[in-house]
């Protein structure tokens, strides 16, 4: 749990979807330069019903439907940002963001540098990510790691309703492009949100559960699975105390927090819903190893997606992406192979 939620005053339970919608409504109400654009964000209410009701309240100009033109409206978002607006561009899913990748990588991320510091791009892009809903190979990518590779972008992945509520205002206050990844499996999850907390930081990881035997690093949709794995590990025959770290920010990566934890636990498991080879999990394993090589009892264990386009059939999809048991087993094996829990 992140500390803000320990405060009692003004802490309410709400779903991730409600938290994000509250953040959007608040942003539209408090800054007239802010507007939302994307496919079906208006009457339809957003594919995941996140923008539901907003166009009735703020009108079609500020909650603006776009045609199916991902590259076009993301580029228009960059232009609007350059022109003094604060666009929040919704790309329906990361899968379709490939059509707009040129705009984000070749323009949004490069303009400030290419212009010698003259033009910054205060753009916020939201998109859903992840698998798990039997949508098959073209609708189930987890490509956050690609965006996290690009200098000039900030990339965050709120894993809790609280972060869903408070990362957006921070992103809007940032003078640079910020990409917000929302795991589609999280929208119906509820949790505490401190309504008075104010903008959250966009660059620090957060320890969601304390433990001294092994560090489990996860983000977005994998955080909940990691926490459940930690519970199983604690409830096991010989209990293992797992520490669970929620990355929150994918770029920059908060290696300090990870290193501090691993220095204590001497063991690390990184969890990544995306494909294993060349995924964010590889960067995490590499940086943790650089910082903790001498204190690690074993190589960092990687629990990641299988190297296959995500299949439709449930039993195959489940087998293709990391499940709670995969995390539990990886952590238990790691601890067992290195002398057991302390």
């Amino acid at each position, binding site marked *: 749990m992140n500390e803000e939620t320990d405060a009692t005053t003004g802490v309410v339970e709400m779903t991730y979807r409600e938290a994000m919608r509250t953040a959007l409504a608040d942003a539209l109400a408090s800054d007239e330069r802010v507007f939302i654009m994307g496919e079906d964000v208006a009457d*339809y209410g957003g594919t995941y019903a996140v923008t539901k009701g907003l166009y009735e309240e703020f009108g079609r100009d500020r909650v603006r*439907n776009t045609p*199916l033109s991902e590259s076009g409206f993301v580029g228009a978002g960059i232009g609007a940002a350059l022109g003094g607006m604060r666009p929040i561009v919704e790309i329906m899913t990361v899968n379709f963001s490939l059509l707009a990748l040129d705009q984000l990588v070749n323009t949004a991320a490069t303009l400030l540098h290419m212009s010698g510091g003259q033009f910054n791009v205060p753009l916020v892009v939201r998109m859903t990510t992840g698998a798990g809903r039997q*949508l*098959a190979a073209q609708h189930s990518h987890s490509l956050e790691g690609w965006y996290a590779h690009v200098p000039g972008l900030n990339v965050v992945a709120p894993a809790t309703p609280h972060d869903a509520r408070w990362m957006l205002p921070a992103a809007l206050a940032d003078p640079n492009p910020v990409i917000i990844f929302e795991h589609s499996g999280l929208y119906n999850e509820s949790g505490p949100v401190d309504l008075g907390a104010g903008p959250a930081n966009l660059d620090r990881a957060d320890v969601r559960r304390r433990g001294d035997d092994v560090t489990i690093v996860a983000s977005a949709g994998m955080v909940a699975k990691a926490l459940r794995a930690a519970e199983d590990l604690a409830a096991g025959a010989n209990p293992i105390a797992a520490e669970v770290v929620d990355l929150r920010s994918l770029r920059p990566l908060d290696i300090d927090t990870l290193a501090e934890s691993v220095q204590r636990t001497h063991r690390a498991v990184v969890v990544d819903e995306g494909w294993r080879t060349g995924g964010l999990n590889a960067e995490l394993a590499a940086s943790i190893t650089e910082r903790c090589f001498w204190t690690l009892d074993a190589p960092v264990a990687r629990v990641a997606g299988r190297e296959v386009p995500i299949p439709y059939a449930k*039993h*195959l999809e489940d087998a293709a992406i990391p499940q709670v048991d995969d995390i539990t087993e990886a952590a238990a094996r790691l601890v067992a192979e290195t002398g057991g829990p302390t």
Partner: protein
Amino acid sequence: MNTDPLAEIGDEYCRRLLQDMIRIRVFEERCAELYGQQKIRGFLHLYIGEEAIATGVMNLLEPHDAVLATYREHGHALLRGVSASSIMAEMFGRATGCSGGRGGSMHLFDETTRFFGGNAIVGGHLPLAVGLGLADQMLGRRGQVTVCFFGEGAVAEGEFHEALNLAALWHVPVLFVCENNRYAMGTSLRSSESQLDLALKAASYAIPAWSVDGMDVVEVTRATQRALASVRAGGGPMFVEFQTYRFRAHSMFDPDLYRSRDEVEEWKQRDPIATFSARLVAADVVGEDEIESMWEFARDETEEAVEVADAAPLEPIDTLEDHVLASEEVGS
């Protein structure tokens, strides 16, 4: 011309068209139920209301032709000759499904009938159609056509523009079939196109194009006959826009809040199956009883498909990583 269109097409053929529209309708009504029962998962996009298009077009294709469709393709696959049971099994995620359970409703494929999906990136399959046509052209496979179905929403995508330009530039034998059901999810054509005349867009690539009533299977047939004749004769790509409407929501997730009940009801008055049935009865081509048996036939086909699919096995989990890389040539 003022010759009677029905006569021109022939009674036998008219019966077949009606039967095929009914087969799609019954199959999909059942899919909706099965989705409610969670036997079908993921996304499910129904074609109900639009059956005249696939029916009119698919019945005019030859075995060697190639077909590409969107995620709203159950009817296209069915009329291409993919068995109802292998389509149903696919949506049940079974090993015997037409994509081995790996594709689901949005990704029906069939190599033997050159059915290239089942594509779920809007506009993404248009360039593929150009390439398939190019292969026919370069390999001298005269008379062969690639038919590419897509929704009007795809027209706004850059790939539509690039594909039509390439097709015209290279004079490939491709028939572009735009299924204009007026909405892309909740976005009406008016809010997605600055110029609503889609045929005019095709013309800007020097591609012959016209707009046709997609609720009338006879009109669809006549227009497609003309278009195919020209493409097969080496006339280069053609574009036909069929005006239609989907009676159901975009997908089973769609609350359908963006259009009025009246609008939907108005269009339902033009139900391609009801209107064609009435017309055939009026013209004494078929009798009420014959139509009833057509529904009966469709129900049997569908129920058998459900039974077969229900009894079908799942792919063993240890095959998960199969079909990522081919060891040698398969398909195509």
